[in-house]
């Protein structure tokens, strides 16, 4: 009996590894999409945006209402999610952050963190009052379970979400490296003072960065919504994931966010399947501690300015 079992377990194990690797990569694509916006804004403004998770949360609510109240199709709901995220992000930048980084206070970076953190608490509380704490569901674009090679099982929604995430991150790469907006962003990343001397309007490009960051967060949440639920404090989980990704990948690095997002997804799924289920969130965290101990600046980050 034992010989027969051994004969059977080896290929089973391989199949399980392949399945979990694919599942992890698909999940990781969404983590990357959540985190690139955060990384972009940090690179340009040196602002760690604690309200990023709430951009995502409000985006997913917009998607739910687009479908349930206005009867829009699922793809239009994703556009609504991105638009809502972008709008909230823009308002955040203009109302909350700009007065702070125009001021002359000390420890501006830390103060923007407190301001965005209070904003995120307010948005969660306000959403709870307006929409209640019910867990809502969003229909996906491709509601079917797919089966490859007899042993890889995937939901169509996951595949759609992953493809959209990769396309969006690819678009962001194109913007950053091939357009004038991207050149301005990179200039601001290198030196805000130098960029303003050569005539780059910091506020305009900061607004663009926030628009993109909010749209990505909203879209990521809209893509995640069919796989999870939509509720007011869902942004906190999203934020923790995004933080872990940017810490692992290196603050301000878009490629780093992509690689770290995929890595995080794979590590989480592998840990859940092969170590112990129930501690899914702890594996990414262990990865983060390991990276901090070995490479404090992240896998792809440069040791930043001396401030």
């Amino acid at each position, binding site marked *: 009996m034992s010989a027969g079992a051994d004969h059977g377990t080896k290929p089973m194990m391989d199949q399980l590894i392949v399945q979990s690797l694919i599942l992890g990569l698909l999940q990781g694509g969404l983590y990357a999409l959540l985190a690139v916006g955060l990384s972009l804004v940090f690179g340009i403004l040196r602002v760690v945006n604690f309200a990023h998770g709430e951009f995502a949360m409000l985006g997913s609510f917009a998607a739910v209402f687009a479908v349930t109240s206005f009867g829009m199709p699922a793809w239009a709901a994703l556009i609504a999610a991105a638009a809502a995220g972008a709008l909230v992000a823009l308002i955040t930048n203009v109302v909350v952050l700009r007065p702070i980084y125009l001021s002359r206070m000390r*420890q501006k970076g*830390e103060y923007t963190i*407190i301001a965005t953190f209070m904003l995120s*608490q307010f948005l969660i509380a306000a959403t709870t009052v307006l929409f209640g704490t019910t867990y809502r569901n969003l229909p996906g674009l491709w509601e079917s379970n797919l089966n490859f090679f007899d042993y890889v099982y995937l939901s169509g929604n996951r595949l759609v979400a992953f493809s959209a995430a990769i396309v969006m991150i690819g678009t962001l790469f194109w913007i950053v490296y091939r357009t004038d907006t991207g050149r301005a962003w990179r200039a601001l990343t290198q030196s805000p003072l130098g960029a303003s001397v050569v005539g780059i309007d910091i506020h305009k490009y900061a607004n663009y960065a926030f628009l993109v960051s909010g749209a990505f967060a909203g879209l990521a949440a809209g893509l995640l919504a069919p796989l999870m639920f939509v509720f007011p404090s869902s942004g906190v989980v999203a934020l*923790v994931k995004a933080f872990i990704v940017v810490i692992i990948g290196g603050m301000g690095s878009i490629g780093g966010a992509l690689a770290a997002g995929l890595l995080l997804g794979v590590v989480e799924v592998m840990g859940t399947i092969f170590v112990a289920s129930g501690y899914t969130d*702890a594996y990414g965290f262990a990865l983060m501690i390991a990276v901090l101990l070995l490479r404090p600046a992240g896998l792809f980050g440069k040791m930043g300015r001396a401030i």
Partner: protein
Amino acid sequence: MTKSMHYAIAAIFAVSGVAIASIGVKPIFADLLILSAYYLLLAGSWNLLAGFAGQYSFAHVGLAAAGAYGTAAIVNAFGVSGWLAFLIIPVFTAAIGGLLGLVALRVRGVQLPLITFAFAGAFAVFLAAASDITGGSMGMQLPKLVAGFDRSPYLILSGLLVAAFFVIQNLVLDGRIGLLMQSVRDEEEVARGIGVDIFRIKVYAFMITAGLAGLAGAFYANYVGVLAPSMLSMSEMGMVVAMAVIGGLGHRYGALVGVIVIRSLEHFVRGFGAEYTLVIITAVALLVVLFFREGIIAAVGKRLDRSVQQRRWASAKAS
């Protein structure tokens, strides 16, 4: 204010705890005051860490939760008296805070809040998931410190704890370590240049404030008696940050003012229901953050200074 006045304020709290307990108040007020003491310990020690040492940690409530769960663990598992936890737990959480500092302080500036935030998030997940140890979301119980429903021992205890907090804060801020902490906050590079071991100062600041957070946690566990992972939800951390910021970060009594403002607000808007309470409190905190960046104490102080100057000017013109 002079040094002795700062100690007098600590003494006032110790005495008023005894006074209120002997006069006797309605249970609902006693509850309000006792939990306010918990929040004061937390917000005050966070103010010490963020406002004076410049290290913005979001794991502070997590450390208090570690203290509370630690209290429950030693009381339940080893049959230690809850009183002894007030001595053991601060040492335990200070050690955890030190370890956290050793990992998290490898990066500087704005990355620290991110890392501590992720730490706290993971700890909350652990508390909920490790249900065989912590009881999960069902909660973990421990016997009461004082049998019965009389709240006066807790009132006396909260007065003493607040007094102890202010004494420790005075010792830290008036001592060498407080000056070094502020030098790290104001100009890290200059501080390093004149020979301050900034890493060590930051770790010390983490340990001192983690010890205070642990004390708060031990008190919470002994008073409330049931612990649930919701104790370290991010909205709790938001409350603590709001309290410190509303009063004024980096002001000795900033946390005190913030706790008074938020707790009385909480008390008076309670009638609207829990969700509305949270909206009102976070909205007030957000407005203060946006429009009174230095906090209420500094804003009122400036207003007073100006009116004093105007009066002087007016009287000089008249004469």
